[in-house]
């Protein structure tokens, strides 16, 4: 059995199918402005806590994409970092009474520290074995959190996490304003991810994803790069998890359970891996869908999202973003070729 992820899971990166296709800078800038406008307008059109959920899950998915789409590593235990930060953020906010952005940054920092030993152990394996090590680690944390009732509240979770924000009451009480106060944390995470993939380091990651043996022969310490990106990814997942727990006002075992790791992978693949854009898109679809289904009293949400996932993997391997981009590219190609024929 091959240890390479690309052989065992046939999910293609959105960027990989048409290797010569790169977004031109104007389109990219336009997309960025559009995305910012959408993010700013979101709580005007969607119930603000749901909008906040979309951003938190979107950022969580970006952290997974950093590993899956850009390094070729499938983490099936990313709830460990999202959940750890959710708890640590909550504890800092409750016990120390610090403003929530400080608490979230603290949570993300602890998630990164935790990722150092996890990454160190996990990157020695590839493919499905890597996924299993990360899953095992997340499960261990889940049981620890369940046992440490004094700290985590066990099955009751950590209740009453305050949204302290320098005494500004509107933010602390109104989810609409809280959204805008938390937005910089989300953007910070997205920026960190973008910076990472568009750095020399990001170039090495792509090399490792596509051909680890070649990267090693060129002198790159593949394991060290993988640990580094794993820690960066954990920090971003931690930012997302911290914002999520403050937004909800509690942190529960739900944040550490393996289904959460599964859901974020689903969201990432649904949106399309290897572009960073896909994650937020997938998050919007899944969070809105769950919200609609839950408010209509439907209980089998998992069946719907599961079916969608199966359809995506079978029919649209590149996810929403990749399939959409392909479609546009094909339309444009057929237009230019027919134009040439006319001339």
């Amino acid at each position, binding site marked *: 059995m091959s240890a390479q992820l690309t052989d065992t899971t046939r999910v293609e990166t959105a*960027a*990989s199918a048409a*290797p*010569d296709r790169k977004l031109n800078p104007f389109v990219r800038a336009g997309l960025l402005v559009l995305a910012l406008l959408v993010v700013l307008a979101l709580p005007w059109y969607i119930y603000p806590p749901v909008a906040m959920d979309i951003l938190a899950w979107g950022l969580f998915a970006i952290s997974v994409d950093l590993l899956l789409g850009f390094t070729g590593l499938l983490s099936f235990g990313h709830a460990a970092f999202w959940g750890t930060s959710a708890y640590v953020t909550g504890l800092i906010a409750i016990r120390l009474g610090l403003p929530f952005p400080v608490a979230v940054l603290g949570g993300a920092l602890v998630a990164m520290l935790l990722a150092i030993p996890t990454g160190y152990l996990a990157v020695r394996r590839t493919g499905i074995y890597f996924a299993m090590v990360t899953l095992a680690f997340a499960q261990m944390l889940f049981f620890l959190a369940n046992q440490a009732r004094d700290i985590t509240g066990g099955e009751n979770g950590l209740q009453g996490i305050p949204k302290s924000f320098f005494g500004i009451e509107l933010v602390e009480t109104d989810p609409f304003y809280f959204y805008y106060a938390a937005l910089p944390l989300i953007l910070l995470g997205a920026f960190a991810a973008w*910076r*990472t993939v*568009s*750095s*020399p*380091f*990001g*170039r*090495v990651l*792509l*090399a490792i994803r*596509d*051909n680890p*043996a*070649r990267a*090693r*022969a*060129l*002198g*790159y*310490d*593949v394991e060290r*790069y993988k640990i*580094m*990106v794993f820690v*960066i990814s954990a920090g971003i997942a931690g930012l997302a998890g911290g914002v999520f727990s403050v937004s909800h006002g509690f942190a529960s075992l739900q944040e550490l359970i393996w289904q959460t790791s599964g859901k974020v992978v689903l969201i990432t693949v649904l949106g399309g891996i290897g572009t960073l854009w896909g994650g937020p898109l997938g998050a919007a679809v899944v969070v809105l869908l769950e919200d609609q289904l839950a408010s209509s009293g439907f209980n089998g949400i998992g069946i719907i999202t599961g079916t969608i996932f199966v359809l995506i993997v079978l029919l649209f391997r590149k996810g929403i973003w990749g399939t959409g981009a392909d479609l546009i590219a094909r339309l444009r190609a057929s237009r230019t070729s027919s134009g040439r024929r006319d001339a």
Partner: protein
Amino acid sequence: MLRTVDLTKDFRGFTAVNAVNLDVAEGMIHALVGPNGAGKTTLFNLLTGFLSPTSGQILLRGDDIAGKQPEQIAHMGVARSFQITSLFEQMTLLEHLELALASPTGLGYRFWSSRKQLSRFKARGMELLDEVGLADRSGVTAGSLAYGQKRALEISLALANDPSLLLLDEPTAGMGLEDVDRTIALVKKASQGRTVVFVDHNMHVVGSLADSVTVLQSGEVLAEGTYDEVRNDERVITAYLGDAGGDHG
């Protein structure tokens, strides 16, 4: 320059490389030949750290490098190419060279810098591409190259950091005649001022390039010497052509 002492690699009872003693002098072009399964690629992987030996030593300028990691060996001035073309299909040719040239600088660890930083290697990268005749294709992805060009890019990548020891695993595998001759010229040029060890099945390539030859069979050294010496060695003829082959010389 490169010496192995009783180098042995066992794969669960199967001995792929058995007590091999190589001695490659500085500045030489040394060929490893032998039938399929003779242990050539295993030996290559041992020399470059992709496998660690069961026993024995690998001495690079007198230092034992057995058990070191591939990236460590790469930083000691050893570069290799792969038997099966091994590139980054989605990267452009120039991006390949930039990546190779950036490796010893540690720039790759900079996750906070712009990737434009890599363009400082552009001029040198273009020079290297020019040397293998690929300068005009610097902007296309490796995946879209013709086979012979991919092999040339492999060599270019291996040469990027001016290695003192160059290891080429079947540089002409699967090539047409024209590409083979071009590759021979390329390797000859690349061998100036460095030591080269290569594996090849093509006796024309071995004859035109190698100063010395080691013939492997079943993981053991069957014969050693110059190309002419081993070509006329009875044991080598038998190994390659069977008993009947002796008549053809």
